[in-house]
């Protein structure tokens, strides 16, 4: 237990208010409150409802970071209200905080959003073990500790949606499955009991698939359970190559192109990489490439300074490659 003295500080909360049944537009209500150092964000939501406005609406249930109901945004940052200490929030943001739902465009009433898109995408990855089950098994179907370890922290997801609504790709492309769905896909792909044949291929589809990730690490940063979804996205890519299931498209060639370039030069041949990845699609890059060339920003392959001791790099590429394409 902490022996720190409990302190109190005045904080101004600007709180998102909206009732889809009555309001044409959302608005913000200000609440100035004395916040003690022992409170969490959920305590603030409770006090707004209990002390200020009984109609204030939000989801909450377990209060122990396990049900995933109370995720909201504080100053634009996804946070699980019951786990986030106000002391940390004050340290980060000072005494002005804006409280909003996870997704403003999906707001139904105050903090409550329509999370339908999240659940649809989650369901689409078949978040369960698919197998022909013997209805009268002779023995238990156990995982070894090593096999359980392979599932990794992906099993800790509580479907709170913090990462999904922090993902900038989900924000601009509604088709994108999002980090939570991909982490769930990994969870079951990595399970040795799973016999599903299509999940890995499905989530690697171009357009809505796992390749559209921009690698911003927002999902890893906001996850209250340290699931590290972006790492699972990388593992889904790796599985595709390890199992020899990667079909040739601009995304897979872009990944493989790095190995080709490194093998040849040690460093990257930037132009060569784009050409190898895009093939005929290179045409659309020509206008910008010409401008870049005129400004001395394109190095032709013959002018690239190769890495010193290139033979070492080539030896390592040969001995350490585990993937197939």
């Amino acid at each position, binding site marked *: 237990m902490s022996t720190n003295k409990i302190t109190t500080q005045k904080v101004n909360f600007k709180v998102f208010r909206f009732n889809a049944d009555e309001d044409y537009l959302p608005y913000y209500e200000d609440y100035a409150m004395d916040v003690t150092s022992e409170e969490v964000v959920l305590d603030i939501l409770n006090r707004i409802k209990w002390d200020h406005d009984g109609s204030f609406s939000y989801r909450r249930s377990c209060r122990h970071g396990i049900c995933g109901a109370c995720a909201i945004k504080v100053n634009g940052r996804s946070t699980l209200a019951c786990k986030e200490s106000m002391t940390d929030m004050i340290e980060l943001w000072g005494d002005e905080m804006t409280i909003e739902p996870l997704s403003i465009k999906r707001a139904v009433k105050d903090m409550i959003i329509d999370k339908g898109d999240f659940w649809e995408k989650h369901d689409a990855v078949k978040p369960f073990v698919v197998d022909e089950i013997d209805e009268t098994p002779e023995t238990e179907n156990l995982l070894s500790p090593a096999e359980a370890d392979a599932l990794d922290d992906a099993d800790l997801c509580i479907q709170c949606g913090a990462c999904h609504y922090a993902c900038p790709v989900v924000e601009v492309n509604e088709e994108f499955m999002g980090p939570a769905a991909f982490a769930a896909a990994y969870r079951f792909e990595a399970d040795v009991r799973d016999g599903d044949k299509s999940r890995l291929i499905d989530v690697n589809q171009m357009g809505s698939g796992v390749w559209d990730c921009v*690698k911003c690490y927002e999902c890893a940063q906001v996850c209250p359970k340290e699931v590290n979804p972006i790492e699972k996205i990388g593992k889904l890519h790796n599985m595709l190559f390890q199992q020899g299931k990667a079909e040739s498209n601009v995304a897979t060639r872009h*990944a493989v192109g790095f190995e080709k370039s490194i093998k040849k030069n040690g460093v990257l041949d930037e132009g060569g990489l784009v050409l190898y990845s895009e093939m005929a699609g290179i045409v659309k890059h020509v206008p910008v490439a010409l401008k870049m060339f005129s*400004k001395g920003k394109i190095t032709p392959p013959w002018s690239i300074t190769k890495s010193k001791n290139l033979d070492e790099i080539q030896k390592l590429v040969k001995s350490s490659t585990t993937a197939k394409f």
Partner: protein
Amino acid sequence: MKKLKYALFTGCTAKQSTPEQMMSTMAVAEKLGIELIELTEASCCGASHLQDYDDFLSLVLNARNIAYAEKHGLTMVTICNTCQLNTAMTKHRLDNNAELKAKVNEKLAEIGLEYKGTSKITHFLYAIIDDIGLDKIKEMVVTPLSQFNIAPFYGCHNIRPSELQNESHDKAESPYNPTSLDDLIIACGGQNVDYDEKNKCCGFHAELQAPKTAATLTGNAIAGAMDGNADWMVTPCPLCHLKLDTQTHHASKAIGREVALPVLHMQQMLGLALGCDQNALGMKHHLTKVNFV
């Protein structure tokens, strides 16, 4: 003061599509009395795409790069956020997993190298702030940038994931409320612009496979800086620079609004303030014209 000396991992972009970044890095280092030993043996870091193809290979190659910095007994300094992520992530994983480190070292032994974990890895921005200090920079400014509103664009891989930030930087900053680049702008005498997109993603890593998504994120970033009344933007990452400087046409189309601002590398901004020869800062290599020098 003892002369600062680092092993410089230039990355590939500074040597190819952003030559101005390499030039300004060297110019600023000279002004600040920093000696940079270029790691000419280094390979590409994999840019988090080789990692998608073959994770183990990318660990081995990055460990080799770090091993060369260790041979010099120097801190490795990066000038690209994505190089920083991939080298620091390699260090993080190897330093915390003896079995993995042994496996990687088995491969490195084939070429007579060993990864020990003795070199710190940090981005040039943080090396300057930690080892020289903002007060000293302030003293050294000869051309304060006081007439400019400057929008900092941090770039994801310097600030997320924060566990790497904590390991490579004396005073770790929050990925949600970063201050280092703002502080540097202020030290150079400029006005820092606060805007929502400053710590958001530029879209670079999905440019080929998801061009519309990438262009929208680029457009939103420039639009945010413009709405914040910025005269120009500044970034520590050459990949963000490429998106923000060269992709304005696609970005404007994606968000349905004409957006463009001059974008300076962190080193170019510092070079201007420290009075480096402007020709040495390479402004002529920009696509979006740097119209104020």
